[in-house]
């Protein structure tokens, strides 16, 4: 699934480690989500979106899903 996490991180100038610690996952999980290897759960997607003060739809691209 396509996400805007990488762009948002760059905008807010935060590292993968900082984001991972804030949302309660490992850095590898953030890397996998950014590389579209892993699809985040609803809870994790919500935590990431809330961290950037955005909605889930603004961070994650659901256009691929029918």
């Amino acid at each position: 699934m396509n996400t805007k996490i990488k762009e948002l991180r760059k905008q807010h100038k935060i590292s993968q480690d900082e984001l991972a610690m804030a949302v309660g996952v490992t850095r590898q999980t953030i890397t996998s989500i950014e590389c579209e290897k892993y699809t985040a759960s609803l809870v994790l997607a919500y935590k990431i979106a809330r961290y950037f003060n955005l909605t889930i739809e603004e961070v994650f691209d659901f256009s691929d899903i029918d």
Partner: protein
Amino acid sequence: MENYKKIIQQRLWAMGLFAMSCGSICLVGGASGLFEKYTPEGIFGEFFSGFQVGVILTFILLCVFFLVRYIIALNSEKVLKEMYIKENDERSVKISELTGVRLQKIVCFPLLFSAIIAGYFSAEVFFTLIAVIFFISLVTTARKIYFNKIM
């Protein structure tokens, strides 16, 4: 995090008790000559007693490692949080579910225990059980590496 702290304290006690039990078995068995009395004779007997001591010592060393790790975590909030995240990371949990790491632990420990008991009676059964443990561990590790790469 308070609940996790309690879990770590419980694990600390369990590890301590397990390490002490292993140490006691090693001391009592070694000092009383019980191990030597029932150990099969010949080359297999030597290999088997060495294997037995090796397994017990490995368990003790692992316990000491985890004990130190848990004590450090209980004294530092940052380390505790890192440990909590590492254990409860959703991707790692999913990989563990897919590879059957929990099942491996549930199956391999009783098999290892059975192998040690069987070693007193039959070399064939002992080596078969060890081969099964080795194969299960190998498959689980290979699957873990694979899923870590694709996920």
